[in-house]
């Protein structure tokens, strides 16, 4: 009776992996993933993006939007700290040559997570954007702006309002060229990212 016939006599023998089937499923899955990435980059699939936890940078050559509002607020980061922010709401925005970078600590040192999109005259479209802004520079132009509106009376698609009696701005349109922004979080209902490039680079390769 050959010993190899029944390993660990009585006990159920170990399960194993059918590597042929594994290869077939993984190959099909990766093909579908590549197609998904391709269509997202072509602007065919709207992606949802929400990054937070620490300050990251956003740069865009031009931002054009409607339904703009801004008021002071606070944002709590993952380390439990509370930071004052200018909460900025834009109902619908187009961004040209968008670059977004976040420096993250990984077990193998610092890495930069980079998103670039909206080049070649096909801007990124964002709906229901809410930004916890830390700092903003750029040349801005507002249409029909109300400065000093009560923060509790703001009207926007995302339904964001501040405290009664608080200071706020509200504008019908906004146009910013040479946008450079540091923010704690950017959330958008949908991002249509045309010409998407995703990069995870070792070291510091931030947008500015």
């Amino acid at each position: 009776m050959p010993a190899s016939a029944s390993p660990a006599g009585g006990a159920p023998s170990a399960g194993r992996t059918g590597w042929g089937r594994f290869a077939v499923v993984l190959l099909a899955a990766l093909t579908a993933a590549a197609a998904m990435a391709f269509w997202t980059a072509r602007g065919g699939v709207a992606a949802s993006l929400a990054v937070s936890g620490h300050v990251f940078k956003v740069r865009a050559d031009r931002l054009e939007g409607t339904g703009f509002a801004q008021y002071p607020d606070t944002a709590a980061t993952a380390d439990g700290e509370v930071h004052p922010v200018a909460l900025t709401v834009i109902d619908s925005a187009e961004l040209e040559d968008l670059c977004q970078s976040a420096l993250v600590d990984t077990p193998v040192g610092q890495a930069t997570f980079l998103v670039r999109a909206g080049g070649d005259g096909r801007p990124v479209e964002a709906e229901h954007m809410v930004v916890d802004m830390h700092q903003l520079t750029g040349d801005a132009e507002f249409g029909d702006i109300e400065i000093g509106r009560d923060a509790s009376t703001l009207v926007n698609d995302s339904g964001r309002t501040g405290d009664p009696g608080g200071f706020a701005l509200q504008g019908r349109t906004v146009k910013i060229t040479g946008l450079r922004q540091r923010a704690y979080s950017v959330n958008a209902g949908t991002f249509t990212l045309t010409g998407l490039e995703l990069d995870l680079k070792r070291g510091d390769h931030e947008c500015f």
Partner: protein
Amino acid sequence: MTTGADTRGRTERPGRGRFRRWRRSRPFWGGLLVMAGGTVVALAPLAPLPLIFQQGVAGVSGYTVGLLMAAVGVLSWAQPTQRVFFGLTAVLLSLFSFPASNFGGFGVGMLLGLTGGALLAAWIPGRGADHPD
């Protein structure tokens, strides 16, 4: 030095042997990878929850996809007989996580989920192990 090949797996401490038997009687690594992928997808946004809920479906979907992936990983351990179904579900959820949540946790969560899902679907139980007590 005097021990032959036949003592392998029997000289281990009993606790470890039991864990090994448990691990071998189910698609352990596939389930673990899917759980890890789901965790990465769910943690990637790190946005404050009230803000996420304000975003509606789009904001919540990131967490939902991540949690569903983790749940499928756990279920694949509990019910190894359903491995093909769980494997394909994990693959589809991982694909959906790409547009739904930060490009599937910056790609990492999606790739973990895809690999784990393929491992689940490709797992073959050992003889006598299809009906674990």
